[in-house]
């Protein structure tokens, strides 16, 4: 899980609203990791995430003047990021971007196509230690979920958002967030079980 980002000072946001590029650069430096990681977990592709993060910050620079409450900058930034992710996800889905990247798809080999077999990392101590493999598994599991479930898991379990922050970002009450989050976790568990058996 991510380390908490330092809070951006109100003056920096105000300067950015006035068109100060230095203030904007400061905001980018403080929030680029969060934006990029949300995008990466939501889209499952580093290149796509990079392009999306660029678009997010350009949108921020162009529309930050419309932000009324500087204190809600982080919630607003996350909303902008998620909106871009939703739009991009729709676009990629229409083009079957992820269909060939699914774990359920057969693996093409020289002998022909055979079903993709993924062993449970916990059964194999060598693979278990491969953090990269776990990350890949989690990422593929996330992409199998519904978009709103993925958002909840990314914000809470990967980005460490508080329920209050999630409420501000998603506009949902805490109880709803908790119940939806639990359903998302259970679904991810099912997906991962399916992958490892």
């Amino acid at each position, binding site marked *: 899980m991510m380390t908490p980002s330092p809070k951006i000072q109100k003056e920096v946001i105000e300067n950015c609203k006035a068109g100060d590029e230095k203030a904007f650069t400061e905001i980018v430096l403080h929030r680029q990791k969060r934006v990029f990681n949300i995008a990466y977990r939501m889209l499952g592709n580093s290149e796509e995430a990079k392009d999306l993060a*660029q678009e997010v910050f350009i949108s921020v620079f162009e529309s930050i003047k419309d932000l009324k409450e500087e204190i809600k900058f982080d919630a607003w930034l996350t909303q902008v990021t998620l909106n871009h992710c939703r739009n991009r996800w729709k676009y990629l889905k229409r083009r079957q971007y992820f269909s060939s990247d699914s774990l359920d798809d057969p693996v093409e080999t020289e002998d022909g196509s055979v079903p993709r077999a993924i062993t449970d990392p916990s059964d194999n101590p060598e693979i278990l230690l491969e953090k990269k493999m776990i990350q890949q598994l989690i990422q593929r599991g996330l992409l199998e979920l519904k978009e709103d479930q993925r958002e909840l898991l990314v914000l809470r379990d990967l980005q460490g958002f508080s329920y209050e922050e999630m409420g501000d970002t998603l506009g949902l009450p805490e109880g709803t967030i908790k119940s939806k989050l*639990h359903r998302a976790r259970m679904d*991810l568990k099912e997906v991962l079980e399916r992958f490892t058996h």
Partner: protein
Amino acid sequence: MDCEKVRDRFSSWWEKELSPSEEKVFKEHLSSCPKCKREFEQFEKTMRWLHSAGEVEVPEGFLPKLHKELEERKRAVPEEKRGGKWFYFPISIKLPIQAGAMVVVVFLVLYLTKTIPMEGARLKEPKQTSSSLSVQEKPGGALTRSAAPSPLETPPEAPGPKGVEQAKAPVPGEGRLEEAPVPQIEAEVKKREAPARSTEMLGYQAVDSKEAARASVPSPGPAKIEGELAVSEKSRVASKPPQEIVLRISDRKKVISLVHELVKQFGGEVMTTKGDMVLASVPMGSFREFKKELAGFSSSGKADRLITKKHAKGSLRLQEGAKGEEGDEKSKESTSPAADMERRTIVRILLVEE
């Protein structure tokens, strides 16, 4: 606690939201239910994996690329403002403007389609006048004149400095001038002829180059055309010499009514009666008799005929000109009713009470 409730609390246990008593019941159920225990283990593993997934580092050159992208957009914005601003207007503004533009285009097309054929007709006109010298009114108002002028038209010889002065007299036979008093005739003629002036002049020039030369207007401008038209119009009037008769009378009313009757008897027409003046047109042939009869109304038994020298000279010239240059053509005209009108003379009868 049943299995469903225990499984619903997996997240609460993970978030450490269960109270000690709830946690106790929760753990007791898991130890007694292998299915729930297995589910819980899978859940816990998923959560551990989720939380073990570290953050991905931002690719190198992210910020420089972002600055570059922003610079490019800044450069692109002015171009959009210059050329593509229209596309950002709301449809509520664009639609009426486009509709208005369409209406303007339609009217422009209609206007052009009406004016272009007229210009074409004007261009064709000289050819037509040279091939067939007939009196013809073109759609554009162009009037060509034949070598044999119509009875109502001015003989080409008419215009001249003196003829212009003679124009002060009214023209008999010209219906439109009949009711007009003498000084107003000229102005009215000008007014009524105004719409067809330019085209009429074109006709004159095309047919009779002599006349054009006399008028010394090789290429008439608007002002010159007006002047020339006035000359031509006046020349028509001048072709009919005015007669002026002074009657010395005692009873004005009676004499006026008698004059009216006399004019009618001679097949003439009273044009206007104003105060002591009666303006009438009388056939030229019966003018002498008419004059004699008129002299009978005079208290002195004589009618004083006054013709100003200028008028006399002008009329003589005109008559000579008409005889010399148009003799044959005039003889042809004499058979037509309009020719009879031509042979009328206008008489101004002045009544002087004694």
